[in-house]
């Protein structure tokens, strides 16, 4: 409603002052023309990029997914055979899909919980708060290749992580070498980057009016209650943003797998994007790889839609008075 109230009266006022419909129309269209010109001028770099480098290739990949194409010789039309192969014949596809679900559905919520927890801690007035904030964001700045190298050492069978577990009497697994533990190992690596979400959540927390806390305190709310009734609802939009971005990002996990495990052992850490990369650039099956890409697109789309549908129930926008 507020948007309409802002614009409409202004327009009417111009019309009244000019005193005639024709002139108004003339002036509006001239301005409109100019505006349209600048609109197209300023949007064109993006449009060219979008049409040339995104929309074009996307449409092309729909076609390619319906063909058998080795990238050298002309593509051969096969209809839906690639999709049928993925869904009914290729055990590696289902394994990779299952692994990707496993990874996304654990790493994203885990990352959010850690992010909110860290942000809440850093929001308190503690000594060296700025230093801690820097440290927590630091992992995000380290190139993934370097991180992966460090984690190869950390996750070694007799590495620091297993030493740590040893103090608690736990005999740690061989992580990256073990088919059962290789996915949890990748999730541990993803949790290391939770600092990126923390920074966004922290700024959201800083934006919460102090009066809300004062009022809650006067009503006798405990710190725990204050968190759940004031802080949490206020930061749900940022949590939601991180959820969507995290889902999309984790379904597309690639580099970690490529560097750390190459999908092994026995495809236990094979994910969708490394799989389609392997099909396209190592096996020269571009049609099949494109089909996998579109199936992944559908999966991500479904999860994003579910997230948006359920968002109404738990995401709180102050401007949306209900």
């Amino acid at each position, binding site marked *: 409603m507020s948007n309409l109230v802002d614009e409409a009266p202004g327009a009417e006022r111009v019309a009244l002052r000019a005193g005639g419909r024709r002139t108004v129309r003339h002036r509006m269209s001239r301005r409109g023309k100019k505006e349209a010109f600048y609109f197209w001028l300023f949007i064109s770099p993006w449009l060219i990029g979008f049409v040339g480098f995104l929309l074009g290739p996307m449409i092309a990949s729909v076609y390619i997914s319906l063909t058998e194409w080795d990238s050298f010789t002309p593509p051969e039309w096969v209809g839906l055979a690639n999709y049928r192969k993925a869904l009914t014949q290729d055990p590696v596809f289902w394994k990779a899909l299952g692994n990707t679900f496993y990874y996304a559905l654990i790493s994203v919520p885990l990352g959010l919980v850690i992010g909110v927890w860290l942000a809440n801690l850093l929001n308190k007035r503690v000594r060296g708060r700025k230093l801690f904030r820097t440290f927590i964001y630091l992992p995000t700045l380290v190139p993934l290749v370097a991180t992966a190298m460090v984690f190869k050492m950390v996750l070694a*069978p007799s590495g620091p992580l297993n030493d740590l577990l040893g103090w608690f009497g736990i005999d740690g697994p061989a992580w990256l070498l073990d088919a059962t533990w290789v996915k949890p190992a990748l999730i541990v690596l993803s949790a290391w980057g939770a600092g990126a979400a923390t920074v966004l959540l922290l700024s959201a927390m800083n934006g919460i009016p102090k009066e809300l806390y004062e009022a809650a305190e006067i009503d006798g709310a405990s710190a725990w209650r204050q968190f759940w009734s004031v802080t949490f609802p206020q930061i749900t939009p940022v949590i939601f943003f991180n959820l969507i971005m995290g889902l999309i990002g984790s379904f597309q996990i690639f580099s970690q797998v490529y560097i750390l495990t190459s999908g092994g052992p026995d495809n236990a850490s094979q994910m969708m994007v490394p799989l389609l990369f392997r099909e396209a650039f190592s096996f020269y099956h571009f049609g099949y790889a494109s089909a996998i890409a579109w199936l992944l697109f559908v999966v991500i789309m479904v999860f994003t839609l579910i997230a948006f549908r359920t968002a109404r129930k738990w995401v709180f926008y102050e401007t949306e008075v209900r």
Partner: protein
Amino acid sequence: MVDKSRWRGRAGLAVTAMLGVAALTACGSGGSDDGTLKMVVWGSDVDKATYQARIDLFEAQNPDVKINLQLIPGDQYEQKVQTMIAGGDGPDIMQVAEGVNSYSSKSQLVPLDEFIDSSGLDMEQRFGPVGELYTYEGETYAIPDRSGAMIVYYNKDLFDAAGVEYPTAEWTQEDAQAAMEELTIPGEQWGYGGAGWWAQWWSFAYQNGGQIIDDGGRAAVDSPEVVEALQWANDLAHVHGVVPTAEEYADMGPDMGGDPAFAAGRLGMNTTGFWAIGSLIESDVNWDIAPMWQGEEQAVSAFGSGLAISRDSENPEEAFAAIEFLTDAEAQQIIIENAQDVPANLEVQQSEAFLSPEWAPEGLNMAAFGESSAFIFQAPLIPEWNEMQAAFDDNLGTFWNEGGDARTELDKVQAQLESILQ
């Protein structure tokens, strides 16, 4: 007016779309038509310096031809070259190895037989049996450039300390295992670096008389000979404990394996290609090399690469003349001077320059390469090479890491290979 601005909007959209398409097609048509040959290779700084030195030699004698060398990191080489060729901008000269037939089977390489005939190049005389390595369905697609057998590197100090005789080609698999056991100090030092790589355990399979792909082009990895070889290779780590397990390697450091562990002096023996020499010269290890041991028969794998001409080349005659020169004795000499690799040219391989190079430690047995060439087995360079390798990786991961039954795993590999080769 409203309509007009809408129309403008549409026109604008159409123009931007066309611009986008134009930008895309522009990328595709850019080629080198100024007479410069584009050559792509993979490898390290040493590789680049060596190729460049050979090219400089060629350019000095052929002033009207220029070669533009591009070095692509090994792990991106296939994708980059594939993208170049798919974009109609393939290189004139390209380095090829085991994956050669993924190109030749899709007619992306120029068949070289006509050029070979008209230039009078005698493949048999220059390269020996390796000359036929890069043929597919009766046509030659690449000229061998670098070619050397896998050899046994051994740590003389460890052998002396354990009182074991140095390895020779006369050793049997049993002799090798006995030596490995003598050389092993549990948790500290191991007799051998392991055979988890295709070039290593396939050698044992061919020593047993097995084949990975049989002469009729069918998968043959479920034969008793191959099963026995794989079981032995894996038992060395998980039953006999004379090879570091995957866990023991991971504890030594990131990306640890036979080559770095041998250079660190923790292995009695390691089987790999010529390239390990570079880092060993700089290490403190007292080492030498020997030809591979044998099983029922002698067999060892070889590594190499050839030079091919892509179908996009605008001047294949000139490209072939360059390849001819680069694989001739004078240019191949540089490969050994720089300690880069084994030159494919037999004349150079048998020369004094190769047998006692300046950089080699006193008395290094360089003749091991020549000796091995008599029993190199021909690896099946099928067009689906990468898929075949993945079939092994997909099924043998846990087997290598934790030990297990070779028969069970190879039955799975066999089924997967059969569906790939259909």
